[in-house]
């Protein structure tokens, strides 16, 4: 490796090739997801409709579920005996609709499931390639790969997929249905990055020479990725909630909406997922802003100057705070709170694209 030049052209080139390859694989994953949804539409088990329209279900509002888990308990003798773990009965809060979660994108169809798995494998592969691309970019410039919007975009999309894969791997949440919207957005982000935002790899302006770059920007990227997952869940919640409301009211729902929305998790599940995701990352977003303020204090001499980027991250913060409060305020729960969450994410997006492109401020570096 010749390090005579600060920028290693070879590595930068490798990084570009990797990013393009990742896009190709994401494209394949996108098609696999489309197949998954298409095959899944053959499944005609209308659980939601059955749950909401059959008289028996709505009578007893509180539903129960049991789960049995066998646990191994160390016995006194040193061996282990298998004990039946007591069944824990859970009851959902009464008053909520008792709607089962949809079966997922594949609709329980075997072929759909196969395509879903293929899509997931391809997404994983594309993620690895993209991650290598980001690392190669970082090595080529010998710094954190977050110096301009192109680098920020490739890192952001890779982290978003990483969050999704990590959530899937934790097996606590079944969120494979998120695959199609996620891969679509990632393709759009990467497409925008390589076509419009591309910047040849280079060094940073002196103001960015700080370890706070690692802390502040990596947190911002991670928050963005998680907020994105929350926003998709919120959006789908709004659709699914309307669908359930229509079913209860006995209104007609188009066949397409039925086919797609039927397979999503119940509105309550989506709402809870969105809340959990947004609430979990909100403290980190708070930290991101505070870290930014501390950095600004040493770089510009002021902790807070209402620079456009600062202002919009503050607006985003307040909007998410509104969402969290709205969920606990009578008359604001549900759809209104969800709308607030979407507005908050729109603020986040504007802070990234809008402020960088249309507004000049102290965060304007290296030509977008």
């Amino acid at each position, binding site marked *: 490796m010749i390090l005579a030049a600060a920028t290693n052209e070879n590595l930068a080139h490798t990084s570009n090739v990797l990013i393009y390859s990742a896009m190709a694989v994401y494209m394949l994953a996108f098609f696999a997801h489309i197949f998954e949804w298409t095959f899944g539409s053959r499944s005609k088990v209308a*659980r939601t409709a*059955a*749950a909401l329209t059959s008289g*028996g279900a709505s009578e*007893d*509002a*509180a*539903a*129960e*579920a*049991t*789960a049995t*888990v066998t646990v191994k308990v160390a016995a006194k003798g040193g061996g282990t005996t298998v004990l*039946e773990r*007591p*069944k*824990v*009965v859970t*009851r*959902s*809060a*009464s*008053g909520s609709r008792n*709607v*089962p979660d949809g079966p997922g994108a594949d609709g329980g169809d075997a072929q759909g499931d196969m395509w879903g798995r293929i899509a997931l494998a391809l997404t994983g592969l594309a993620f690895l390639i993209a991650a290598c691309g980001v690392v190669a970019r970082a090595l080529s410039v010998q710094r954190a790969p977050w110096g301009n919007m192109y680098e920020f975009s490739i890192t952001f999309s890779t982290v978003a997929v990483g969050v999704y894969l990590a959530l899937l791997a934790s*097996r606590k949440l079944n969120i494979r249905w998120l695959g199609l919207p996620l891969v679509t957005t990632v393709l759009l982000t990467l497409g925008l990055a390589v076509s419009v935002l591309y910047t*040849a790899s*280079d*060094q940073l302006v*002196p*103001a960015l020479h*700080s370890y706070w770059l690692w802390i502040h920007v990596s947190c911002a990227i991670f928050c963005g990725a998680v907020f994105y997952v929350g926003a998709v869940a919120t959006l789908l919640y709004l659709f699914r909630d309307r669908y359930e409301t229509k079913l209860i009211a006995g209104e007609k729902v188009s066949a397409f909406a039925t086919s797609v929305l039927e397979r999503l998790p*119940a509105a309550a599940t989506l709402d*809870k997922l969105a*809340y959990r995701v947004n*609430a*979990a990352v*909100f*403290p980190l977003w708070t930290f991101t802003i*505070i870290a930014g*303020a501390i*950095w600004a204090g*040493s*770089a*510009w*001499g002021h902790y*807070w100057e209402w620079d456009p980027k600062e*202002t919009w991250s*503050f*607006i985003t913060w*307040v909007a998410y705070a*509104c969402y969290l*409060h709205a*969920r*606990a*305020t*009578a*008359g*604001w729960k549900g759809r209104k709170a969800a709308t607030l969450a979407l507005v908050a994410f729109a603020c986040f997006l504007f802070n990234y694209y809008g402020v960088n492109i249309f*507004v000049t401020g102290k965060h304007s570096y290296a030509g977008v």
Partner: protein
Amino acid sequence: MSNTDTHAGEDLAGDTTPTDDVADERELGAAGSQLSTAPREEPLAAGPRLGPIGWARWFWRQLTSMRIALLLLLLLSLAAIPGSLIPQTSASSNKVDTFLTQHTTLGPIYDKLQLFHVYSSVWFSAIYILLFISLIGCIIPRSWQFVGQLRGRPPGAPSRLTRLPAYTTWRTDTEPEEVRKAALTLLKRRRFRAHVVGDAVAAEKGYLRESGNLIFHVALIVMLVSFASGSLFKSEGGKLIMEGDTDGFSNTLSQYDDFTSGSLFDTSNLPPFSFSLDHFVGTYERSGPEVGTARKFQADIHYSAGPGDSEHKGVIKENHPLQIEGSKVFLISHGYAPSVTVKDGKGKVVFHGNTPLLPFDKNLSSSGAIKVMDGYHDKNGKKDQLGFAALFVPTFGGKGQMLSQFPAPDFPVLNIGAYHGDLGVDSGVPQNVYQLDTKSLTPFKDSKGDILKKSLLPGETMKLPNGAGSITFDKGPIKQWASFQITHQPGEGWALGGAVAAILGLAGSLFIQRRRIWVRATKGPDGVTVLEMAGLGRSESAKLPEELGDLAVTLIPEAPPAPEPDAPGVPEADATAPGPDADDAGEATAATGAAPADHAEGAEK
């Protein structure tokens, strides 16, 4: 103001089951009571005929209600928007002036609405002050309530534990007292606050959620107060220093180019440090698409902490201010200060020195004014003043515009326009040292009658017409200047502490679940102990049943299950309640543990 709480008690009470259950519901509501200090929402009803105190109380209740707090939060985010789109005086007063000249109708309206200083405007302040009053009005009663809850004990078990969100039961041969004792020990070991009430153990955990919530909101107030008080005591000023300028800067008011301070700052308290600029280093990208982009700025300085202190060498870079005597010195900007020599008609040097010029683009094309205020006499021997409008480019791009091609002084060219007359410096009106006020100046004319203007290379001289003298762009390296901002901002520690507390409190209030667990042990009719466990949280969470299962598993060695009787277990008087085995409910809404409930389709008739 609670972030996340939903009214568990309210949810339970919202059930519309037959009247038999009314008492039951009340009891369940009591079990879930005081699981948080979140305010209950009151209907927006203004009572008729309220006296002044009544109205004040009504207003106060409205202001501190969640609904109004939420609206104020929304307003705050909306109010912050214009400041990011309209130029602000605090960020750039030049841009505001440009805006005002470009928009003659809109400008004054904006000015009236205080849109050029949104964040110090009356309406923005009103919103956040109201918000903080609302916040304080919310926190204080909640803190009291929380203290009460901390001093109290978790309420006793409701009679029908089966109705709680998570429930489990088994039969055991261990005596009820023993079971309760074991459960109490277990729960206490798991750091629950637990005590025995009647035939059951009542336990509660997760008080940190409420503490976190309160800490977060108090920390916000601490941050606001420390910023506000900090701005009363802060001082901030700018100083431009040229390389090798031996005087440098000493920290007294008269030395500042500009200075602002909070209303409670005592200017005689400025710490007596001083520093001077030895050398400024700026390096720029020489190739690639980002040619000309700055790579490194560094100011090599000498500083001393006070009259008795010796000189130290130091370096100020971006991101690395000099910290001295409680103040910070930041490197803000830099530029060139070309040296010129001005002679009068007799060849006498009337001015020789460097004049700092202000850059106006990325490649450091700079402009400024060279002023010869005294010592100059025109050819008739009359006292006169000379003014030169200077335009400097560090790298000249050949013929055409005086715009620099690169920030480093590769091909420096100085363009001079010459004037004489009254510079206006004695008029008492403060003027910009970097601008030439040409109102009472007469331009020197060239042979064509235009204003005398010439681009000079180092060493070149422009002769003023009619023996009025000459100006020479001196040879040698072009000196650079750097400008520094000297800031003294107290209250930083408090703000930082507040910020850290806010994050920790937030994490506590969002990640910790406050929940109650009850363990009831009673003798069944057949002499076998029936053990029941149930859990209730503020919000539905998959973690609660998991935790209950864990606790049950841990309790089993102390209370091993007894063989089931032939009939499905119907414990005590609770015959109407659906038992765990009587799977008579409709759909499964929440599957717990790793095994999803797969009997979801089995809708009950």
